[in-house]
């Protein structure tokens, strides 16, 4: 591969759940300080992405929503994601390891 595009990772939120998508964007901005958060709203889905590694914590998401929100409840709105995923009790990390 000679193409060296920036590898973007992160959640793709269902377009019907735009309110939650707003909160996810806000939380991703808090949880990934210094990273440029890219949002691509395609109507039917909203792609939120960060280069290489994207963290989303329950704390930030609850703060953005203003109500309790266990991460397991994200699933009905999580249509897809870019990168690989690691889900623990209080955070999700989407990532890609390979450098080239």
């Amino acid at each position, binding site marked *: 591969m000679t193409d060296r595009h920036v590898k973007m990772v992160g959640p793709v939120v*269902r377009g019907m759940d735009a309110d939650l998508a707003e909160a996810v964007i806000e939380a991703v901005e808090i949880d990934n300080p210094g990273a440029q958060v890219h949002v691509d709203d395609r109507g039917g889905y909203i792609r939120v992405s960060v280069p290489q590694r994207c963290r989303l914590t329950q704390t930030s998401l609850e703060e953005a929503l203003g109500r309790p929100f266990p991460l397991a409840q994200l699933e009905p709105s999580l249509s897809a994601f870019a990168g690989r995923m690691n889900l623990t009790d209080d955070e999700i990390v989407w990532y890609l390891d390979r450098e080239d």
Partner: protein
Amino acid sequence: MPRLARSEWYDLARDMNWKVSYVEESDAWPDELSTAKGIPMEAWWGWDEPYKVSYREYVHNQAGKDASVYAVNSVVARSKMFSQLDEGWKSAILAHYGAIAAAEYLASIGESRMGRFGRAAAWRNMALYGTLDEIRHGQIQTYFPYGLLDREPRADWAHKTFHTNEWGAIAARHLFDDMFTANDAVSTAIQLTFTFETGFTNLQFLGMAADAMEVGDIDFGALISSIQTDEARHSQQGEPTMKLLIEHGHKDYAQKLVDHMFWRSWHVFALLTGLSMDYYTPLEHRSHSFKEFMDEWIVKQFLDQFRDFGLEPSWYWEDFLKETNWYHHALHLGVWFWRPTVWWNPDGGVSPAEREWLEEKYPGWNDTFGRYWDVIAENVRNGRPELTLPETFPMVCNMCQIPLCNPAGHAAGHLDSPVPLVHDHAGRRYTFCSQPCKWIFEQNPGRFQGHMSIIDRFLAGQIQPPTVPGALAYMGLSPEEMGRDATDCSWAFANGTVLTRGA
């Protein structure tokens, strides 16, 4: 809800693994159904899914998903929304329901095979959710078109397609049997969940959801984007399976499984999604071209992901990239010309404004594919529709079961030769559209050699009378069901602007 955090009890509850003693391991997990590749049982027990969900959470989430999607459906059903949809868009959703709905039930067979023959309890647990997911997808995607029957009788192809010998149904069955109904657990994890679901289903289920929202079809948009939330989870059975294969020295095997199913998936999605996005979706509502969606979901997102495991782009990657420029345009020409052979109304979709868009998205389109449409449009305008309809049939590929359109690819400058690939095996001649389709056959001829394409059946005298009407009857298409142009060829009369549909 349990007071403990999930991580405090999850592994214990999930990992119900033990060494069998009453039977041989090879009897409990026969290699034909399970595939061990010599990896010891205890190593399989290290299989760990990245996307975790407890059964309680699963049931809670799924009930909520269904409640919200059925609520949209029940509101929309009382409105005039469907009748007011663009005719081309209606064709896209009819094609979708016919090709996909019953296939979802078939996918539940593949999931349940992993749920029984996967070699780790964690995997079997994920596959149980996957089985229930696919049953949900089968039910919901037969229920929604059922609600359309009074307005569109051909919505019953959601049920009917897979019970017919319509050529697209033969192609879909051949693919899905290879991928999941007749596949072992390991190959299903790599081919169905990793390749097909992490990669390609996003195109149809999210790419089309984007277009659906533009078109105003919230019913379809809500449906398919919700289905994809299940896929995003159960497709994660691929990663831990892939990891184990690679850790135990079977990277080449994993790569081959991906190469095989990536190509097959590409061809069927070019046919289904390619035509829907670039020709059937009304111009003013197209959010991206098919090629742009391919670039976003496959060429970037999926490629990044499989390279992350140390796999490389398939040996045919350059040919694949080339095909993204022409293959679905050639298929569209063929499907439109042989429109009586499909259960939807193909939209020619080549008015001057649409051609301008096609030229912008696919530079050179006017000088290549446009020239065929010039002749077709002239015949339409001259009142000679018979010249735009088939008198015979095209050759069909013995792997993807899709008609060969190599001459169009050659004429457009993307293929070195217009000639199909021929392969003689065990006293029979096979025809292929492409090197990868031929390669897939050669990797495992015993798996594919007995299948007869619809053209093989025609030539063998199985289709009687051996005429176009005889073949249409064989395909299960009554005159009322046969496809015709979605807009009575309004595009051929359009003069610089898109006509109101149905004009």
